[in-house]
C-alpha cells in the first residue's frame, strides 16, 4: 500500500462506492422488500387481527356533556388498560363552575382519577357547572403530525393519530404543538404518548376501555363508514361542537352540549 497514489486511491474508492450503491439500490426494489405481512391471522405477531381492514373504517368519538357525572371511571379504566404512568393521563376530566358574578373556575384534581371532591362548600352563586372529559381528538388536520421531524406520529388509514415508538426520539415538538394538551412524554419509554382510542381493542371489534367503563353513556365510539352506526347518526343529526374550532384541526372527537367556556 506504500506507493498508492492519490489518484488511484480515489478511483478505487469511487469504484467501490458505485458498486456498493448500485447493489443496495437494486436490493431496495427487490420483490417482497416493500410488502409487509398483510395476510393477518389470529394474533400473529406483526399481523392485523382477524378480518380487520384499516381502510374499511373511519372512527369517531362523541361525548355527551349533558350526561357526564364526573365519576372518573373512564380515567381509571384507561390507566388500567394502557398502563399509563402515574401523574400522566391519556384521558382526563375537567370540572367547570361559573356564575353571573363568579369567573369560570376549572379544576381537575388528579385528572379526575379519584372522582371529584365534594364542592358543596364554595358553590355559592354557581349558576352553571358541568364536567368535560378530554383526550386526544384524533384530528384530521393535526399539528402534531406536521411538526414531527421523524414521521413518528402519523394519521392512520382508519383516522387515528398514532405514535410509532420506534421512530420517536422524544423531542417533544408534538407535545408543544397539540392545542388540546393531550400528549405527554412517557418517562418510561422516553417517547411521546397519548390516547390511541385503544387501537388494540377497536381493531378487534371491542370498544375503547373508557367507553366501556362509562356508566352514563356520556362516551360513545363508532365508525362513520358504517351507515347504521349510532355515532354516525348522532354526528349527522345532533348539534355538535368540537374543542377550539378556531385551530382548524378538524377533530374527530365531537361534543354534545359544549359550553363557550370550554377551552
Amino acid at each position, binding site marked *: 500500500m506504500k506507493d498508492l497514489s492519490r489518484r488511484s486511491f480515489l478511483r478505487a474508492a*469511487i469504484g467501490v*462506492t458505485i458498486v*456498493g*450503491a*448500485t447493489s*443496495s*439500490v437494486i436490493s*431496495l426494489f427487490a420483490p417482497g422488500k*416493500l410488502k*409487509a405481512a398483510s395476510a*393477518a391471522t*389470529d*394474533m400473529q405477531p*406483526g*399481523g*392485523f*387481527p*382477524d378480518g380487520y381492514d*384499516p381502510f374499511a373504517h373511519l372512527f369517531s368519538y362523541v361525548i355527551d356533556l*349533558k350526561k*357526564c*357525572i*364526573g*365519576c372518573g*371511571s373512564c380515567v381509571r*379504566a384507561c390507566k*388500567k*388498560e394502557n398502563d399509563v404512568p402515574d401523574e400522566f393521563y391519556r384521558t382526563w376530566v375537567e370540572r367547570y*363552575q361559573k356564575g353571573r358574578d363568579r369567573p369560570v373556575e376549572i379544576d381537575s384534581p388528579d385528572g379526575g382519577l*379519584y*372522582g*371529584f371532591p*365534594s*364542592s358543596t362548600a364554595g*358553590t355559592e352563586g*354557581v349558576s352553571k357547572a*358541568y364536567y368535560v372529559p378530554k383526550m386526544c381528538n384524533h384530528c384530521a388536520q393535526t399539528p402534531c403530525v406536521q411538526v414531527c421531524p421523524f*414521521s*413518528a406520529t*402519523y*394519521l*392512520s*388509514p382508519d383516522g387515528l393519530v*398514532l405514535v410509532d415508538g*420506534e*421512530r420517536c426520539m422524544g423531542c417533544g415538538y408534538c407535545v408543544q404543538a397539540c392545542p388540546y394538551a393531550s400528549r405527554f412524554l412517557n418517562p418510561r419509554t422516553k417517547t411521546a404518548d397519548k390516547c*390511541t382510542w*385503544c*387501537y*388494540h*381493542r377497536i*381493531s*378487534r371489534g*371491542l370498544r375503547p*376501555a373508557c367507553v*366501556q*367503563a362509562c*356508566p*352514563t*353513556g356520556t362516551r360513545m365510539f363508532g365508525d362513520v363508514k358504517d351507515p347504521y352506526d349510532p355515532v354516525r347518526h348522532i354526528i349527522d343529526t345532533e348539534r355538535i361542537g368540537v374543542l377550539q374550532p378556531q385551530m382548524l384541526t378538524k377533530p374527530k372527537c365531537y361534543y354534545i352540549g359544549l359550553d363557550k367556556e370550554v377551552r
Partner: protein
Amino acid sequence: MEHSKHLWRAVLILLVLSLGYLLGRGLLVPDTFGEYGHFRGANLAEQMNVRVPNHGIGPESCAPCHAERVKNIAKTPHRVINCETCHGPLRTHVDYPSIEAFMKNPSQFKRTAPMEIHSAQDLCIKCHDAQPAKPKGFPTVEVVQHLKEMGVEPGPNVCMECHDPHDPKI
C-alpha cells in the same frame, strides 16, 4: 470537445452524489415506510398488538361464571354499568393469552386471582355525591346530611349497611 474531461468529471461527481443519496436513503428509511402513508407501515400492526386487552367485552365476559349476578343486575338501574367499572379489569382475575381466544370460549380460562371488591363509600360517592355539576335528574345525595338524617355514624363502608351496589334500591 477539447475540455470534455471537465464534463465527464461533473457527470461522475453527480453520479456519485446521487448514488450516495440513494444508498443513504436506503439505509435510513425503514422497510415498510410509505406502505400505507407517510409512516412506517409495520407500526399499524404493532399498535394493534401492543398488548392483550386487559378489559373484557362487557358483562358478557363475566356471565360464563357469574350468570346469576349478571342476570339479576340486569333488572336494576345499575345494569348500565360495566362490571369492570366498579371491580377491576378482567385480566387481573382471569388469565387469557388473547381476547379472541377468550371471546370464543370464555369458560375454559382459569381464575388466577380474586377480583377486586370495593366496599368503601368513596366508590359510591364518585357517582352519587351531590355537586352542582351533576346532570339534572341524576340521583345524588348530600352525604353528611343524609347520614345525619339516617342516624348512622360515618365510616368507610357506611353505604353498604343499607344499600347493595348490585341492587341499589332506595
